[in-house]
């Protein structure tokens, strides 16, 4: 096989089986296609042209040289588990992802890119047995939200990134993302896309709003027509901000205060339901007029219903990020680092951003888009201006015991605990 960090070669076949099974239904199966000239602007540690194997010959020719520098030779394939609609697609063929195709063309590898994650916990459930047993999960890159990333790192189930081989990542990661308390050195995770959590509302029904207090006020204009997010960190985080507490340093005491506040809003019948993305449909159909909302969804809602509004409240908003990580025991670690780094080239990041409409963690992408796609570049929901960025908070990491406590307390409000 490849020279990648396969400390457990016996598990390779198992990995294949697992990956094959997981991919069967949904895989975007990308063969390396020639012809496209790769963007070479700030390319990392190029493999020498001669040693870049074709996808077909890779498994045979890439076998030797354990002495080579870790990222010198890409492996024959790479398995990436991501969320849905999280990658640019070719307008003519939705199975093609141009930025990925450029990567495969440049390095002669094959990326099995699967958008199979739609819930952190459910996906965690699928990889947890392998990680617990010290086996390879079948994935080389997994994309998980901050708190789940924190949990995986805390459990020791994430490989350390060899940042020396990731020049773009080191140079272009926006500073806001650095120094989180669950990965202080920043060498276990690389932010992929972010979103803001704020207020979404229909100004025609509610008037202009700019304060989180409105979520907790029994105003006849919106009582019973308010959706809260079912994601604990967003609902509790915004409530903490409303109370003037710091969600970046959550404690059991502040959790209790926030839960009590949520309970009051529920008892006062202000809250209609706790929802995931479904709040967007509720808002569009008029079932609710005020919601806790994610910026990415609201880009879509605003396209369909331009009258709606999204604001980051004056008390602040939450910033959450989905992060690329290499799970422990991944077979193609070196190539995974190359791919993660690939997306920290401003031109590549810009291309992704123009499609996915979330917040980009890569410096310089906005400048690229100003020329190519000014609508995206000037959209404050995708490239929030500095004054909004300054009001955003990242929910702090929790110990396992605290996480259980927070989830239990929150479940008492949602009626599930």
């Amino acid at each position: 096989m490849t020279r990648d960090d396969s400390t457990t070669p016996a598990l390779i076949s198992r990995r294949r089986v697992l990956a094959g099974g997981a991919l069967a239904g949904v895989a975007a199966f990308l063969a390396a296609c020639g012809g496209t000239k790769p963007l070479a602007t700030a390319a990392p540690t190029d493999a020498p042209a001669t040693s870049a194997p074709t996808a077909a010959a890779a498994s045979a020719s890439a076998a030797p040289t354990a002495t080579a520098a870790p990222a010198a030779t890409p492996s024959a394939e790479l398995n990436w588990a991501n969320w849905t609609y999280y990658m640019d697609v070719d307008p003519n063929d939705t199975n093609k992802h141009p930025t990925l195709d450029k990567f495969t063309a440049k390095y002669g590898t094959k990326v099995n890119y699967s958008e199979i994650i739609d819930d952190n916990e459910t996906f965690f459930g699928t990889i947890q047995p392998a990680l617990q047993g010290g086996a390879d999960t079948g994935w080389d890159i997994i994309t998980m939200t901050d708190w789940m990333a924190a949990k995986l790192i805390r459990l020791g189930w994430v490989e350390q990134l060899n940042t020396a081989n990731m020049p773009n990542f080191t140079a272009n990661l926006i500073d806001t993302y650095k120094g989180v308390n669950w990965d202080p050195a920043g060498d276990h995770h690389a932010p992929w896309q972010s979103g803001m959590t704020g207020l979404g509302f229909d100004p025609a029904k509610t008037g202009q709003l700019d304060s989180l207090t409105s979520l907790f006020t029994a105003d006849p204009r919106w009582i019973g027509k308010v959706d809260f997010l079912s994601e604990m960190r967003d609902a509790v985080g915004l409530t903490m901000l409303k109370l003037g507490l710091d969600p970046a340093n959550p404690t059991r005491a502040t959790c209790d205060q926030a839960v009590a506040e949520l309970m009051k809003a529920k008892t006062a019948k202000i809250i209609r339901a706790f929802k995931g993305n479904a709040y967007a449909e509720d808002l569009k159909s008029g079932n609710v007029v005020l919601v806790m909302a994610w910026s990415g969804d609201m880009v879509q809602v605003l396209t369909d219903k331009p009258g709606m509004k999204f604001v980051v409240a004056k008390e602040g908003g939450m910033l959450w990020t989905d992060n690329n990580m290499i799970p422990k025991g991944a077979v193609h670690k070196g190539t995974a680092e190359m791919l993660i780094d690939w997306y920290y080239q401003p031109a590549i990041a810009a291309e992704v951003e123009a499609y996915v409409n979330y917040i980009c963690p890569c410096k310089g992408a906005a400048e690229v888009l100003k020329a190519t796609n000014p609508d995206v570049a000037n959209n404050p929901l995708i490239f929030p201006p500095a004054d909004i960025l300054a009001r955003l908070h990242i929910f702090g990491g929790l110990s396992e015991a605290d996480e259980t406590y927070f989830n239990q307390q929150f479940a008492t409000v949602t009626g599930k605990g």
Partner: protein
Amino acid sequence: MGTLLKRHRWIAPVALLTPGVLWLLVFYLYPAIQMLLSSFWSGSLETGFTFSFDNYTNYTKALASYAPIYGRSIMYAGAATVLTFLIAYPLAYTIAFRGGRFKNLLLFLIVAPFFTSFLLRTMSWTILLSDDSPILRVIHMLPGVTPDFRLLQTPIAVISGITYAFLPFMTLPVYVAVEKIDFRLVEAARDLYAGPWRPGGAIVGFIVGGGLASVLGIAFQWDFVITGIAGAVTGAAIGWFFISESFVRVTFPLSVPGVFAGSLLTFIPAIGDYVNAEILGNPDTTMIGNVIQNKFLTQNDYPAASALSFMLMAGVLVVVAIYARILGTEELSASAGRM
């Protein structure tokens, strides 16, 4: 081959039983035992779990915290079962006795919703019941309905959703039971002066309708006197016209096995259902399935989740045993044999 099977008569039954038994062993018994074991665990995902019988407190704690939610699940599943019965019985009866050449088409129409995914059907209810939907607009025109009245994210929506989802599970067994009834028995009853039983039918309808409506009224905190009276009057009217003595004495008793099977097929999955409560409900209408799901996936509290699941399973078994006792399993198997 033939002689072999004749000489060893045990081969055929064993061969026929093996796949089913293996299937149940692997996919039912093993997980059930695993669940029972993990309900006696303590610990967490990170520290690891340890087994001890001292952890029976998982059960007492879970029961203490979630008894009201069990109660709510039983109430919703029970209400849905009664509603499916009230809708399915006339439906099955009519198809069986009056369906004529449309019988197969009508049966197909009952099963037709199954051609769409369960989840999609439930999601589409959110459109049907949304605050601005035609249904709601009509309801809002009725006198006495307040402007903030809504259906979506209420107990009514959850129970209606469950009723809709499991309606075919009630209709089909009842249909099978009614369809097998020898109509000559009904004719014989009429020959023996079983006539249209208007006062009796009205009384039966009055009691059933009134009782049902008041239970619903209490559950939804409506004015239960008014709803009770309305239900009783409606029931009496229906009973006056539709319940005959031959139905009460012949047809219905003969269809009881179908009702029994149908209500089990409805009640058991309904009590564990969490999709309807998740999509159509609100924080005050969660069922035990939602709690178990949250415990397993969000809180990673496998012991509590297992204890809750096991109690649900045990509880359903007890309910079924009592139910079978009341309706009489002997009569059930006897009438099944007659079919």
